[in-house]
Structure formats: C-alpha cells, structure tokens
C-alpha cells in the first residue's frame, strides 16, 4: 500500500500535500482546542500549548495519510 500522498492541484497551481495537510491539521487542532476550552476539559492537560502542537501534528499525519489521496 502506498502511503505517500500526491500533489494538490488548484487551478493548475501545484501545492505540496504536506502544506495542505498542515493547514487542515492546524485548523482542526484549533477547533478541538476551542471545544476543549468550552467544555472545561483543557484543565486535565498539564501544558496546553504543547498539547495543541501535538494535536496539530497528529491531525496533519492522519490527514496526510488517510484523507489526501495517494
């Protein structure tokens, strides 16, 4: 199985797949953080900024691997 995502073409402009995955990953991590703040679940984390970065990385890897077609 090939896990390497292919390039993204928007209007004939080619974007690296990692850029798209990273942008979506950061947006999803930010939305998750907003919800965790809202429902007061953020208090269970020791250091939230690192958790936010971790979320961004996890989402980026997941989107890059499973959402962006290879």
């Amino acid at each position, binding site marked *: 199985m090939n896990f390497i995502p292919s390039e993204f073409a928007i209007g004939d*402009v080619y974007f690296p797949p990692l850029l798209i995955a990273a942008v979506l990953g950061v947006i999803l991590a930010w939305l998750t953080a907003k919800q*965790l*703040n*809202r429902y*007061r679940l*953020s*208090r269970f*984390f020791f250091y*939230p*900024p690192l958790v936010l970065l971790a979320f961004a990385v996890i989402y980026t890897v997941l989107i890059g691997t499973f959402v962006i077609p290879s």
Partner: protein
Amino acid sequence: MTTQRLMQAISAKPAHTSPVDQLVALYRSEAFRQSVRVALAMVLAYAISLAMGWEKPHWAGLAVALCSLGSVGGSINKGLLRILGTALAGAVAIALLILFPQDRWTYLVVATLFVGYSAYMMGHSSRWYLWSIAGYVMALLALAGGPDGATTFETVVLRIQQTAMGVVVYSLVATLLWPRPAIEPLMQRVRGLVDVQRRLIAHDAAILMHTRSDVDAPALRMQATRGTAQLPADIDAAELDSFEVWETRRQWRRCVADLGALNEALERWRHGFPELGQLDLERLTPHLATLAAELDARLAEVSRMLGGEAPRRGPQEVAARLDEEALAAMTPFDRAALVCSQDQLHRIERLTRALFNTVADIRGFGEPTRQGHAERRSAAPWTLDPDRLTAAVRAFVAVWLVLLACIYIPSFPMPAGVIPVTAALVIQLAIVPQLSTGLLVAPALGGIVVAGVFSIFVMPPLSSFLGLGVAIFIAVFLLCYLFSKPSQDLARSLVLAQFVMIILVSNEQTYDFLYIANTAQMWLFGIGAVWISGWFPISFQPQQVVFKQLHRFLRSADRLMGAARGAPGHWPQRMALAFHKHELTTLPGKLDRWLAALPAVADGGVPREQVQALADSLHALSGRVRELLEVRGAAQSPAIVRELIADMRAWRLGIQEVLVALAADPDGVEAGRLRGRLDAKLQAMEARTENTLDGAARDDASTEELDNMYRMLGAYRGVSEALVSFASQARAIDWPRVREARF
C-alpha cells in the same frame, strides 16, 4: 461585500429621500472622503516614485497606508514619528554595522536588545509610534543592506526618502481635499469629557442628597477614563495643524492634566460614600446642593467656552458651612468620614476652578494662567515598569526564535521579511498585550488573498500607469471603505500594508505566485513565533497575568502601608517607594484590561459582572491607600499621637497581614470574618479616640492638627473598608475556574 456596504450606506437613508440626496449624503460621509484621500495619495506616491525611478516604491505606499488618519494633524504627527523612527532605526543599523562587523552573535544580541528596548519604550508616552517604527525598521534595514551590509547606508537613505515622500504626499492631499483639522476632534472630545464629568458630579451629589438620578454612571465613568487617556494623542495631532493649539499647547496639556486629576478626585469622592450612608448630610453640610449647582454651572461655562462663546459668569465662591454643633455630637469615625469627603469636594472645586481658568486662557476669555492644579507627572522619579519589561522580553524571545529558525533551518522562507514582520508584530503587541495572537491571522491572510487576486488577475493585463493607477485607486478605496470604522483601524492598517507588500509595484513589474505563497507562510511563521513567545518564557495568558498582577498590587500596597512615616530616606528606599507607588497607581488600570480578556462564561470562564465588580474594588483600594499615604505626611498633634500610636500601629499591621494573605491567595480571606474584625477595631478605636479627645490632648492640638487626626482615622477606615469590599468581591469569584489551564 464592499458593494453591499455601499448599497447599504445609500439605502439606509429614509425612504422619502431621492437617490440624488442619498448620493450627496454618501459624498459628505467621512468614510467616503477618507477612502478617497488615501486612495488618491497612494496613486500619487506611486506615480512620483516610479517617475523618479526610485527603487522600492512600495515603501512610499506603506507610509501612505499606515500614516493616513482622519485628521490632517493626526496624519502629520504619525508621519513625522514614522520619519523620525526610520532615521533612528537607520542610525542604529549603521552603528551596529560599524561596531560589530565581524561578530555575528554580538551583533544579533545587541540588535535584538534594541528591539526589546523599543518594545519597552512603547508604553512610555503618546508618541509610541516612533518606537514601534524604530524597532522593526532597524531589523528591516539591517537585513536589506545585504549579507555584508555594503548597501546599508543607501538603503537607509532610500527608506527615509520614500517614507518622507509618502508622508508629504498624504499630508498635502489631506490638507487640500476636504481638510479636517485635528482641532475639531480635540474640541469635541474635551467638550464630551467635560459634559461626562458634569453629569457624574450631578449623579454623585444626587446620591448624597438622596435624590433620584437616571444616569448610567458605570458607562459614564468608563467614557471618562477612555476619553482622558486619548486626549494627549489628540493634542499631539492638533498642535501640528492648528496654530491656535500650538500657541496654547502648554495650557492644553495643563487642561488634560486637570481633567485627569478631576476624574480621579471624583472617583475618590465616590469611594467614600459608603461611610457617609448613615449621616444626615442635608443638616451637616447645608452647602452641598449649592456647591453641586455651582460646579454644574462652572462646567457648563467651560463647555460653552470650548464652543467659542464667552462665559456668562465666572467661578463663584461657595462658603462651606458645616453645622458645628452637629459635628461635635458625631462619633470620631463619622466625623472623619465627613472631613475626608469635604476634602475631596474641595479638591474637585479647586480643579474645576483651575479648569475654568485654563480653558478661559486657551479661548482668550481670561487672564493668562501659570499653572493648573494637578500634580506634574514628570515630578515623579523614574521607576521600572515590570509589565513593559515583560513585553521587552517577549519581543527579544520572539525575534530570537525566528533568527534561530532562519540560521538553522535550510531554505527557511524569506528571512529578510520574516524577522522584521515578527519584530513589528511583537512590538505592536507591547501596547495591547492582552490581544489574542490568533486574531491577527484573519486580517493578515485576508489582505494577502485580496492583494494576491489583484496581483495575479488584475495587474498583468495593465499596460500603462494610467490603468495601474485607476486599479490601485479603486482597490485602495474599497479596502478603506470596507474597514472605515474606528474599531477596524488595526485591521485596515494590516490589510493595506499586505496589499502594498504583495502587489510590489515597480518599473520592471514581475508576477510571481511563489512570492505570494511565501509571504503568507512568512506571516504565519511570524505570528507563530509571537504566539510561542506569549507562552514562553513568560506566560501572557490572561488567567496567569491577572494572578501575577493581583499579587504585585497587594504586595505593593503592603510595602507602602509598612513604609516609615516621614522622610523617605536614602536613594534605594526612595526608588523602592516610587516603584510601589507606581505599581499601586497603574496596576488597577492594567488589571481592567486583563480581567476583560478573561474567557467569558460561554467559553468556560467566570461571569463578566463579577470581574467588573472586582476591578472596581481594586480601583477603590488603590485610591484609598494613596489617600492614606498623603495623609500620613500631614502634621499631627504629638499628644494625640502618643495616645493613639499603639492602636494605629496594631491596626496597620492587621491591614498588612490581610494584604499578605490576599496576595498569597485572593480566595483565602473570608470577608465576613474580616468585617467582624474591622467592626470590633472601629469600636475599640472609637472609644480610645473619644477618651483621648475628652482629655488634655484636645486642648494641646490646633484645629488643623485635629482635622489631620480625623483625616488619618478616615483614611485608615477607608483602606479597611476597601479591603473588606475587595475580599468580598474576590471571594465571589470562582478562582480555581479562572486558574484552569487553557489553550
């Protein structure tokens, strides 16, 4: 969306107005005129720069975009600060190059220290824009001079030349096209402020006289505080485009100082009302209604003079008639409360009189005045401000983060851009540190998208400057009109700056999508570095800052309470005293902003009303402690002091103990128990004071010394009451929830 707003602006008028009337109304609107001014100045700046064959015309466009304010004077003032800031930045960039040509790390450390110093100086005065420019332009010029700095001098000269040209062009356009002198907004603001204070005096007097007042006092107080803070910048602007203001600039500054002092005196007067609640003031102070009417009439005349009309009457004397018989029958603490309230009222009377005379002098209706009533700020010794220092540390860290990324990450995008961008953002945040970094993303990226579309789809088919000029005019006009509200100033500046930086007009125009994509990345990296510096090494999260500032405030109050009475001693003691006074005076205002930045209930935070009540109680405590410090310096009767000193000392130590406990844990002191302790102390002190005054000590004391003793008693009681109120408001807040770790 912009078209929609234009249509809304036209269709928002009553249905019976004709389309011609609607167009005339649009033409007369300030938003329309300002948008035309900026767009025209931008096109002219580009035209001159391109015609002269100068490099980097976008620097002139940037000066127009960032210095274009509503009034002529405001724009000239900002433009001059931009030019001076650029010159300072250029001098520093060249000096660093001369001093450390071969020492890369020393050069970087000193350069970033200058960026940090600029961030520190942002809070110094109303001329903060100079430091904002100096800090980031220094980084920009140092990098634009090339890796060996060979062209730094030429770059500095070019930057100053383009900036000066942009400023001159906008100033000329603003002066010739629908000129709007800065004296108009200045007069409007001062008149508005005088009116607000007039209504507040009437409201406060109505409370004391138990009559009805429908005024929204909290909103008025907020208006007064904001208006007073904005006035110095208005005067800076007005003195540049109005000879009338320039000639009387000293009187204007005195007027602003008096308005600020009047604001504070009104607050202190109001804070004493709870202690007056039990007293029959109509009998004790029969002159109160007359004095309130006189103050009202006096401020009405001030407002009249500001409108250009001669005053119908001058300030009248109102004799303070206290009912001596009733005073003698009062308890010492009631009498103390009355004396303190009368002192504040006298201060208000003196300040309004000084304000009347100053305004009469400014408008040419009276004799020249030498001085106002407010204390001069410059008389206070220099002190270090910890919050400005943290802003400087943040700037230093943010710039180092991108510097290290540029040095150690291969192919890091646009190092020559990302470092100045980061410096500009982090220095700007020094004056609004409570602003969430995430809020910068939308205007930054929005501006890049708009400018990117313009650059890719609109610019390539254009073949002459006529076409380019018309296109730039339309785009800049629409952007300015879309962001024309005063609350959108920051967003407008960001979007216009992005527009100018992305289209990058030049005589040999090139179009490169990669440049736009890299600029977007560059901004995101810059914002990311600023975001990280908001967490590390010093947290700028509101829930953390509020605790730290509360702790500092209470510790400073404790130190000031414990400071020895009389001469402040040697230099270190004087500096420490000045530092704690500065903390006590400035922290309530800072805490207002940080408390307002705490998350709302909907986001898992605490109710806004509780937070506001806590902020009010902090202002009251600050005012009361400062009042006590002022009273402690007054002459006292040695005989009375001998009798009361042990009790007063015990009382002071009790207050200090509570302050220390609250500093350690705002939730740790139960207000009910504190109230019980205070009541017991008041009873004991009352008995002791009555005994003392019944004895021989009273005969030894002069009237002034007796009044000073009452002032001291009133001030101690005031601090205690304010402390109980603060403890009770702090107790109402769910602190564990405030302290919760958040993203």
